[in-house]
């Protein structure tokens, strides 16, 4: 495992391209068998702002930020939440006792409690697809082309190029979580 081969998965979201169709949400729910009523990803709505006829409306899709400094991992009492070498934060369901402390710790409300299994769950970045060389389900289906994914350590990846050529932000930067989902507006 040399440092050149180390991947660091991340996402870039272009909010100007998001039309709030929520295809990403449906695709994720089906791909990952998410219980009805729970969500691993979402589309936030900002607006309409202003007064008629000068109005604005923006959409902010999101999911688990797979933070570099994940508060969920910090607080997990059994070590069920862990971070892979490539930066993806995952849950070991055998160890999860369903205490939901991680749900309190996440500033992005990215986690949900799976009633039937008694454990907490969240976006896994479709790690099963990544490991097979496929894009996450949400990225693949995004009609507006707003969602991008890739290796942040590779300067030629789509995400690296987008970050290099556009101003970008993260959500709740002051939380110090160092999210790996970046926003370009």
């Amino acid at each position: 495992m040399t440092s050149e081969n180390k991947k660091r998965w991340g996402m870039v979201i272009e909010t100007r391209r998001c039309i709030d169709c929520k295809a990403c949400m449906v695709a994720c729910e089906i791909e990952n068998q998410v219980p009805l009523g729970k969500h691993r990803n979402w589309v936030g709505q900002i607006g309409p702002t202003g007064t008629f006829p000068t109005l604005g409306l923006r959409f902010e899709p999101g999911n688990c930020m797979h933070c570099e400094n994940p508060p969920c991992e910090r607080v997990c009492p059994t070590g069920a939440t862990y971070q892979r070498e490539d930066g993806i934060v995952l849950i070991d369901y055998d160890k999860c006792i369903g205490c939901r402390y991680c749900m309190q710790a996440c500033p992005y409300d990215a986690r949900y409690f799976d009633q039937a299994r008694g454990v907490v769950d969240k976006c896994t970045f479709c790690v099963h697809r990544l490991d097979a060389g496929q894009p996450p389900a949400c990225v693949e289906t995004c009609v507006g082309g707003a969602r991008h994914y890739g290796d942040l350590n590779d300067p030629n990846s789509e995400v690296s190029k987008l970050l290099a050529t556009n101003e970008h932000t993260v959500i709740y930067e002051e939380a110090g979580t160092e999210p790996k989902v970046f926003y370009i507006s």
Partner: protein
Amino acid sequence: METFEWGILVVNYLFLAGVSAGAFAISSFATYIGGPHFRRVARIGALIAPWPVAVGVGLLVLDLGRPLAFWHLFLTVQYTSPMSIGSWLLTGFIGLSLVYAALWVPAPFDHLLRVPTRVQDVLHFTRWRLLAPQTIRRARAILAALGFPLSLGVGIYTGILLGAVPSRPFWNTPMLAQLFLFSAMSTGTATVLLVTALIGARHADGLEEERRLLISSDVVLIVLEIFMLIPFLLHHALSTWSSASSIELILGGEYTLWFWIGVILLGILLPLAIEAYELFPVILKEGAARYSLALSAASGVLVLVGGFILRLVFVYAGQASHFLPVVAR
């Protein structure tokens, strides 16, 4: 109230753990002051201490998504997780406080305090010998010494657990740990006071010395609580947007009445007033305190109610607070 992930079971646990921690602490404190009066306080505290927290822990386990998997907590120590530290703390505390309680069984039962002399006799109870009084006294002292930091740990760690969560601005303050600690001590003391007063009502000896100790301790703890709450409110209000907004929940928001009536009026001001009234003669050095079962029971119950509502408000308001801005989904 909204439904949150952590609900009434967690509130109950926090309250009960606090009562146990406080009861143990006051018992251990009384052990060191010594004297026949404080031995009775020590005994009552010791006998109370293990049970509320044991019930609370039972509730916590039931609240888990997978209650039967709780033992995973004990396969590891996650240093950064107050919950992991807490589960070990609780285990140690409960274990120790059970043994400690056993050492303090009242006279009619003290013939049960026996240990095997030789390893071969472990299964032959009839050959177990009584513990010598000296041994019992030493053991009590040692366990009181070892258990005191554990009890403070149990009292404070829940505040650390909530306080360590920046995404809940209402909780995210160093003051929370201290606030919970003093509330725990106060509720524990109040419980012991209640029981002492009830016993005193039926005893020829009204247990007045004990009650003086307890009432005085409780007054000190309540005053300290007030001096935790004031900076808690000020700090939040003068802090970041998320923080200041979160304190609105009890300064005009949906938990305002719960806080000011339940926590402040019922849990702090009224008991303080009652206890001050009881202690006035002592404070002015004009005589003995005004003891009455009614007053002690009232202040004891009020402190407990206030302590419960404190946990309730914090657990719910905390989960209603959020980093800002919140984007509607």
